[in-house]
């Protein structure tokens, strides 16, 4: 596997291989256009582990000291939508922002994995846009579910790129565009806790299953978005994940 998408086409859900010209090849060889399919999240994780404040610049932006231990929280599958989906901005809120994040997809059952072996347990990577509605922040189990676990507020995709194809996931540029303008830029090498560290830390106390996802946090540059905005989260060597705010 180099690149793998999951799409709905012709009344069924199927895997698809994205081609360089933008079209998709289905497992039976059929070639379809990228606008002929409905893009689904490329995995159906049982468990989604997310990171808060994993880039020092973003922590600073939110007036937090960088954490000494990873700040983890869980997300439900209700949150996921695919590439080109629509996410609702609730009526009357003051601050809803995108968060472009490198998403790690687990490839093997992972328990007590050592950082040195971490990449053996990773199938590949995709892009997440982990929207937050800050109006709902409360100081209990923060970030609480009303901020971070909203229906269809975590676009994921467009596809998974294998670990071998990505190479070093700690050396990728991240960029978010709102209506074509760059609003967020970062570098995965600036994570406070690296992917191998996180995999060791998490699997010390919980088993991750194939298809589970770790969202590795977002860098500085959180800006309010409004209905009608088109938000593109882009990560070098992976792709561009498009979402519309409604």
């Amino acid at each position, binding site marked *: 596997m180099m690149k793998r998408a999951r799409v709905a086409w012709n009344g069924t859900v199927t895997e698809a291989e994205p081609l360089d010209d933008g079209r998709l090849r289905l497992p039976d060889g059929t070639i379809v256009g990228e606008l002929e399919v409905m893009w689904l999240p490329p995995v159906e994780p049982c468990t989604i582990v997310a990171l808060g404040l994993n880039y020092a610049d973003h922590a600073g932006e939110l007036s937090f000291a960088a954490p000494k231990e990873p700040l983890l929280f869980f997300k439900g599958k209700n949150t996921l939508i695919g590439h080109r989906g629509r996410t609702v901005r609730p009526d009357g809120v003051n601050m809803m922002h995108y968060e472009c994040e490198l998403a790690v997809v687990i490839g093997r059952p992972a328990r007590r994995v050592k950082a040195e072996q971490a990449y053996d347990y990773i199938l590949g990577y995709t892009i997440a846009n982990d929207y937050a509605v800050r109006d709902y922040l409360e100081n209990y189990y923060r970030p609480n*579910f009303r901020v971070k676990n*909203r*229906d269809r507020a975590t676009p994921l995709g467009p596809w998974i790129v294998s670990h071998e194809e990505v190479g070093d996931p700690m050396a990728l540029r991240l960029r978010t565009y709102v209506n074509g303008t760059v609003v967020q830029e970062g570098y995965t090498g600036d994570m406070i806790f690296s992917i191998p560290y996180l995999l060791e830390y998490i699997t010390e106390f*919980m088993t991750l299953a194939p298809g589970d996802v770790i969202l590795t946090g977002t860098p500085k540059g959180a800006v309010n978005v409004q209905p009608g905005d088109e938000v593109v989260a882009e990560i070098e060597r992976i792709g561009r994940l498009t979402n519309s705010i409604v």
Partner: protein
Amino acid sequence: MVNVRLRLAGMRQALEAEVEPNSGTVAFGGRTYRVDELEWDAPIAGAMYGVALNDLEEWAALSKEMTAPPYEKPPEGPVLYMKPANTINAHRRAVLLPPGVKQLQAAPALGLVIGRTAARVRREQALDYVFGYTIVNDLSIPHKQRYRPAVKEQARDGFAPIGPWIVPKEEAAPLSSLTARVYVNGRLVQRADPSRFRLPVEQWLAEVSEFMTLDPGDVLFFSWPADAPLVAAGDVVRIEIEGIGVLENKIAPEQGGDE
């Protein structure tokens, strides 16, 4: 006799059975079994969400703390936590004590199993979306802070025994009468009932489904942590909810033998 939905180890499909919660017999397929001669699996495979700070006794004990930093004020919206797939555990299966940890808190909880996709449900209709009730043993490493999600304390492998079965709500006594009793090594250590819930479960279903959809098989659970027991290696925790059943699990060390 109560008609329940259950799952046994080694079988992919759920079964319907008749159980006698007091004597502990289970009848299906024309035969009757004792609960302890069957190998159990968790009766659900969905997501498990706990509603925190719903126990009035816990709320009263924290009332002062909740007005001080870092909390500043009591929560207005639901405070939820998740018990992910790795935490799901079954009746009579061991719960492993992590290395270096001497005690766990074992909080009894009433689990509502969702029967119909629940999005933006109204409080008045909320129970229409519930298939039935089950028992959850909400285990955690004791911790005081509630400012950040207590993932390492709550989400360890096997920390959410659930079952042994689901009692469809039509088969169960009224929700308000579902009294929980916790026994550790046979000794009664806690007794609690839904009159201790800060808000009714219908209200929570409405508030939670306002922003997140619950699917059939998902569980929203409500614990009574205020006076929940601390348990150690070798202890047997038995949670009984009247008219629902008995969920029993032994605490075992994670490494080094069976005691």
